[in-house]
């Protein structure tokens, strides 16, 4: 698992945890719980857990997730081949997520309001938490 560390528009910490699913990590629920524990440990204000099937976002890591997006719907437009997502490991998934975050920030691929998941994130006040897009990958 790796975490992309972001600064929100007000300087708050947002983490995006990349959790690939493969033969060794078929326990989605267990991995999601571990990822949330990590968010608490590293005191992230806002937290996202991404795998190829879903993207969950928390405004408050002590409560239920606030938004749930279909991972394939969101990330497939950043893959050059649709089949790439089925075999996505940690590195490949992280690349798709970085391109998606940059699209939310700079709209390099989709016009404003048309980035996959943008409307849902905005409705839950999570867009500004993804901030300026000054990202750095880190493994806690």
């Amino acid at each position, binding site marked *: 698992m790796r975490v992309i560390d972001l600064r929100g528009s007000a300087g708050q910490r947002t983490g995006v945890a990349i959790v*690939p699913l493969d033969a060794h990590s078929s326990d989605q629920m267990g991995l999601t719980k571990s990822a949330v524990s990590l968010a608490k440990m590293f005191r992230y204000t806002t937290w996202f857990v991404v795998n190829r099937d879903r993207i969950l976002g928390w405004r408050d890591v002590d409560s239920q997730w606030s938004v749930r997006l279909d991972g394939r719907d969101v990330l497939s437009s*950043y893959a050059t081949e649709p089949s790439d997502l089925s075999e996505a*490991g*940690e590195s*490949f998934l992280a*690349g798709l997520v970085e391109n998606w975050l940059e699209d939310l920030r700079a709209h*390099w*691929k989709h016009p404003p309001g048309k980035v996959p998941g943008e409307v849902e994130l905005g409705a839950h006040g999570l867009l500004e938490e993804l901030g300026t897009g000054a990202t750095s990958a880190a493994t806690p």
Partner: protein
Amino acid sequence: MKILYIETHFILAHARGEQPATETVLHAAERDLLKLALPVFCVYEALQKHRRDTPEREQWASRLDELARNLEHKKLDTDKGEAFRRSAGDLRKLNDTWQRGLDQTLNRLLRIATLLPLSRAVVDRARLVAPHLRKEDGDPWHIAAVLEDQSTLEQADEVIFLSGDKEVRAFVESRGIEAVAAAEKVVAKWSLEKD
């Protein structure tokens, strides 16, 4: 009993699918046709090398993605942008493939190979070996772990030490242990089946 001492390069070559003969050797060991012995230091070294090379490829991929985004955003040369993005994706896929390969190789090796410890005796012997080698890396620890494995060496009918380094092979051969450069030679010498 046939004993094959393997090392870091064997682990990485198998993990990356670079030398089919490594799979033949591993498969033979799983059928008890030979015993593999591996200094624990080499496991550490393989993980270190993998972790050192991975971020470099990630940085290249991020740079290519950035170029692709710029081209696509400005609607300049979208074909080139897609080609950059595809290359970035390929680099990331390579990282994922090699990571999975390394996990699988180590899982198999840790099940069947004898791990040679990095004991005090090994460290002491490595200090004696080091002045005989020109390179400053982990080779003395690797050699020392094997030379300290006396009980196995005495019981074995045939022993081969695998190393891609000519100087290391020469040193080990000077201690009476046959050394070869590649897994292919082990397959040929011991007539292992390729399946």
